[in-house]
Each structure stands twice: as C-alpha cells, then as structure tokens.
C-alpha cells in the first residue's frame, strides 16, 4: 500500500449516492402506501357511502348531507388521522428506544410507560379517582398521562445516577412493568362489571376515542420531537456503534441518552393516554423500517414514523372489513396485520443482523 499516490475512485461515492437515492425512493413508496391506506380508511365504514359521495363530502363539506358530513368528518376522519399520528408516535418512540438502549426488544413499553398509563386509566374507570381533580371529564386520559410521565420521570432520575448502565435501566423498566401490572390487576379485581369491561377495553386500545383535539395534540408532539431527533441524527446513529466508539466520535452519550429518554416518554405517554395501549407497533415498526432503509437516522427516522403510521392505518381498515359494524380491540388486529409482513421481511433478508 503506497500512501502518496492514491487516486480516489468514482465508484464508492457513486454507489453511496445511489444507495441514498434508493432509500429516498423507499420512503416515498411508504408515503404513497400511507396515502392509499388513509383514503381507504375514509372510504370504508358501516355506513356504506359510494366513493363519489365521500369525495364530494371531503371537498365540499357544507354541501353534503348532515349525516354524511358527520360520519366523514366527526367519525371517520379523526379515527383515520389518529391512526396515523399514534402509529407514528409509537414507532418513533420505539425506534429511539431501541437506539439508546441498544436492545432490539425495546419498545416504548419496555420501560413501563404503558403499564403505568393503564394503571392511571383504571384508577379513573374503576375508583373514580382523578389525580388532577380540576378537569373531571378528562379524568381518564389525564390520569393515564400523569402516571406515564411519573414512571418516565422515575426512570429518568435513576438514569442520571452515576454508574447506571443501560442494562440497569432496562431492568428498572421491567420492574416498573410488573409493579404497575400488579396494581392494575388489583383494580380490575375490585371493579364492577361495567368498569371491568371499560378497563379491559382500554388496555386493548381503541381508536374510537379519537377526537379532533386528541389528533391535534398527538400531531403536535410528533412535530415537536422530530426536529430534535433530526438535529442529532448522526449522533444517534453513532450510538449504534457502541458507547466508546460514539464517545470517540465526540458524541456526548449521557446527555443524548437522557434527552432522548424524555422525548420518547412524551411520544409514548400522550398517545397511550388517549387511545389506550396499542402494542406491537412500537416494537415492530422500527424493525421493518430498519430492514428497509438501514440505521442511518436521516432515513431511519422518517421510515420508522411512516411504518408505524402505515401499520396502524392498515389495521384500522382491516378491522372494518373483518367485522363490519362492531369494534375489535385494535392491538389484536395490529399484530395480525403486522406479523405476516414482519415474517416475510425477516426471511427475505437474512443478511441483516438484529
């Protein structure tokens, strides 16, 4: 190897640019698929309106019949949008969770955020206890949110202690999961039949609770968190090479981890308090994204969001087709929709690790 006369080749650069371009295409493909799923979600429902009527009610709401307008804008639209925003939030949270904890099984719920939220909701549904007494009509979501944030704060504070490793954080999270699940079971035992049905339904997740206000809140959280993660794209990607390597690249790993933890907590707690716990999306969405575009956060981040949104949106559509007229717990269907696709990807591309 002579050092002095090295002629840089065109090949590497060109191949890299091509790779980046292919990834952008994949992301565009995801956007198209999402748009398609969203349209289906708007067009399908027990009140069978022909496509032309749906379109005209979309374009010209004031001209449409009252019922059509209400069904489209007050029932279907919030649910369809909620699927997109919640799916995106959960998948993004899962993606960053897996990044900072270096654990492929991490999801926003690994740290007990969802268990805490379920417990908070159950407190409201079973015992009528409002943690924040002023706004009783929003008792359940507020309870859920406060408990979720309390759990996150607990983990956050413990993470700032010197010498706490990633494994410790994960174990702590698992301890919280068990604790809150136990408390939840206790509440379920004390519940009336109605309360029990409501709690169980809550823990299985439901998009029917969607309202325009909730959609907006979830969207805002997404919009607030994305720029933060985007700004730290390279640093977050570097984390995946190991703590020491990342530190040697100049990344402040401690500070990055803590800030990301906070972001993830918000991203997980808010949707959960609105729609109950929807599992699987936060775990599998990032994996699918990773298989499609790799771990460079500049591509991985948008892909994770889109995969999550697509998964939940498709689920919403499928659940309307399977059992028209009734509502099935969405968490169940998400798994049914996501798992086959996940399997297909795993077997198609075994070269990838994780």
């Amino acid at each position: 190897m002579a050092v002095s006369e090295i002629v840089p080749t065109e090949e590497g650069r060109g191949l890299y640019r091509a790779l980046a371009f292919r990834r952008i295409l994949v992301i565009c493909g995801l956007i198209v698929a999402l748009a398609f799923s969203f349209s289906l979600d708007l067009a399908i429902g027990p009140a069978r309106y022909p496509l032309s009527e749906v379109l005209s009610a979309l374009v010209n709401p004031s001209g449409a019949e009252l019922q059509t307008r209400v069904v489209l804008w007050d029932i279907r639209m919030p649910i369809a949008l909620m699927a997109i925003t919640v799916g995106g939030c959960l998948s993004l949270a899962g993606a960053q969770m897996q990044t900072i904890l270096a654990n492929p099984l991490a999801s926003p719920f690994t740290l007990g955020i969802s268990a805490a939220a379920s417990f908070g909701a159950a407190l409201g549904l079973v015992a009528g206890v409002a943690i924040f007494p002023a706004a009783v009509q929003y008792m359940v979501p507020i309870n859920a949110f406060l408990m979720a944030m309390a759990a996150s704060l607990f983990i956050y504070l413990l993470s700032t202690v010197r010498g706490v490793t990633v494994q410790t954080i994960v174990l702590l999270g698992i301890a919280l999961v068990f604790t809150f699940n136990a408390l939840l079971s206790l509440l379920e035992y004390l519940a009336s039949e109605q309360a029990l049905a409501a709690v169980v339904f809550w823990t299985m997740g439901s998009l029917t609770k969607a309202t325009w206000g909730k959609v907006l809140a979830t969207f805002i959280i997404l919009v607030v968190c994305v720029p933060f993660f985007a700004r730290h794209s390279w640093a977050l990607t570097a984390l995946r090479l190991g703590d020491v390597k990342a530190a040697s690249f100049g990344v402040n790993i401690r500070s990055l981890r803590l800030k990301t933890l906070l972001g993830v907590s918000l991203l997980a707690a808010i949707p959960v308090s609105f729609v109950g716990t929807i599992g699987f999306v936060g775990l599998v969405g990032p994996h699918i994204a990773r298989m499609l575009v790799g771990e460079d956060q500049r591509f991985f981040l948008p892909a994770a969001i889109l995969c999550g949104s697509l998964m939940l949106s498709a689920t919403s559509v499928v659940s309307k087709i399977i059992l028209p007229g009734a509502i099935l717990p969405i968490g169940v269907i998400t798994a049914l929709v996501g798992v086959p696709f996940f399997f297909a990807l795993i077997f198609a591309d075994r070269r990838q690790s994780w």
Partner: protein
Amino acid sequence: MSKIKSLAASLLVTATFLPAMALAGDVVTVTDITGREVEVEVPVEKVILGEGRQIYFTAALDGEDPFKRVVGWRDDFEKADNDGYHQYLEKYPEMADLPTFGGMKNGTFDVEQAVALQPDVIILNLDAKVATEEGGYIEKLGKVGIPVVYVDFREKPMENTEPSMRLIGKLYGKEDKAEEFIEFRAAEIAKVTDKLAAQSDLAKPVVFVERAGGYSDDCCMSFGNENFGKMVEMAGGINMAAEIIPGTFGTVNPEQIIASDPDQIIVTGANWELYVPGGNWVGVGAGADPEVSADKLAGLMERPGFTGVKAVRDNNVHAIWHQFYNSPYQFVAVQQIAKWLHPELFADLDPEATFQELHDRFLPIDYRPGYFVSLNSSK
C-alpha cells in the same frame, strides 16, 4: 275395637305432628338451576347470599323481615345499585353491620369465614359456577356440611327465573309466597307476550340498546341476543346489534348506528357516582330526578354516532335502570320496553303501576319512581 281406636289415635297424633316435624328442619333434596341435587335442611335459618343483589328476591319472599336469615353477603349492592342500597339502609340500618365477602367469581371467597357463620345454605349466582368449581369450594364446604345452590337471573333469565324463585321459596319455607310471585310475574309477562302473539303482521321497530351509555367516552357498548337484547325481542322489537355482536356483550361502531338508523334507542343507566363521579351516565333508579335524567339522556344523543338518526328525530329515546338485567323484577322492564315500542298496542299497560304493585305486595320498601325516562314526554 280398641286396636282400631289406638291405631286411629296414633295416626291422628302422627298426622298432627308430621307437619310440625317437617317445619322443624327437614332434610330435603332440592334440584338447583344447574340440575345438581343438593341436600338442605329446610327452612334455612341462616343463609349467605353469594351476591348482595340477591336481596332483591330475598326481600320479595321475606318481606316482613328481609334480613332475618341473612348472616353474610357479597359487597356489590352498594356499588352496583347505590339508590336501592340506600333505600334499604334507611329502613334496616343494621344491614351495614352484616359481614361481607369478596366474590367466588374472583376466587376470593373466604371459606373459613363462611364456616364461622354457620350458614344452612349458600346461594350463588350461576355465573360464579366456573370459579367455584375451579376453587373446589363445593367440596370444601361440603366437608363441613354447608350446602351450595345455584340460582340464575342473569344468564338465561327468561328460563331460569321461575325455577330459581321456586327453589328459593323451598329453601326459605316460603313456597306459597314464591308461587304468588311467580304467578304475578307470569301474568304480567303474558300481558305483553299474549298481545304480541295475537298480532299478525306486527311491524317490529329496530331498537338500539346502549349498555351503560356515558360511562366511558367510548361509543357504544351494546348487547347481543341475550339479556337486554332478548328483552327487546320479547317486547316485540328487533335488536339492532344482534347480527353485529357475536357474543352477549360487545361494542358497536358509532357509524353503524347511523347506518342502521334505528327507530328506537334505549340506554341503560344507574347511579354510578361511586364509579365515575360526574360522568355522563344517566342516573335512573329508585327516586331519581326525571328532569336530570332526561337532560343527561338528551346530552348523550348529541354524540356524532347519533346524528340524524330516526329515533333521535322522533324523540323515541329512552333510558332504563341497568340492574334490571340481573333481577327477578325484569318483567317490569319488558313491560316498559313493550310500551315504548308499541304505544298504541299497549296504551292500557302501566309498568309503573306494575312495579308499584310489586313493591306493595312483596317488598318492605316503598316504590320510588325514577327507573324509566323517555325523551318522548307523551309516554
């Protein structure tokens, strides 16, 4: 001659004493609602009620002193039927001192505590059967000589109410009273079913029954073809959710309500202040304020899934006491529903009067109206 005389005399003596001996603790074999044959010493003097709301039938038979036999019960009465609980508490304050249990359904039945109370029988609801068998409670209680019988007013109320009442009548030594109740009930139900059967070509309205409307912000829980769903069918209606919900309970997509456009809407409610304080549920029950109930009911109809629905346009929206679904009084509910669904046909039917009569003849507490509310004030 003297032989015959002495025979006659002994027969006479035996005949006189036989009933007395039967009254003073005979061990008989009864068949409970699941077909089990159980040996019980009747009439029972100490009974444990497997569900607090079993007081509904106990009070119907032991009207003069409903708690005379009860040595312990489950603690659901206060939470599930707060208004009823307080009604009974007013008259029988000692009720608050009765020992309470967790439920067999949750597997927390304290066998030791039960034994300490020395009941002559434990009456359980049918829905506790699975948990009871899993826990082997019947064997354990059997070892100390405490029999267990099952009754049912919830799972198949139309089939099981009569045999359940008869069984309890036998246990309490109040068979006559039980028969009276059964007759009364059958007659009242017949007022509905006979009239409906006599109609050929009856137009049956589509009815949407919402379970516990306003309890949570989900819309909307409903019933399949049992329970309230069945009551609607009995009263000459079509249960909107029967085809949609696979089981007895389930949730209906709010859009479906618009799509099915029901002719009538019935919302079940109760005073759930202890569970969901300040919630949007409709607090019908004993002594409920009809105006408040009507307001809340109207409020529920402003949800998106009810926009422009026929029932709402015609004000054929009603609320009914939720606990009817687990009570021997549910025939009153059937009457009220029939009256809502077919007002001209049942113009002479007066469900409130029926309920009043039930209270006067059988129950130790007064009838306080407030169990039914309708947005159609002509009804």
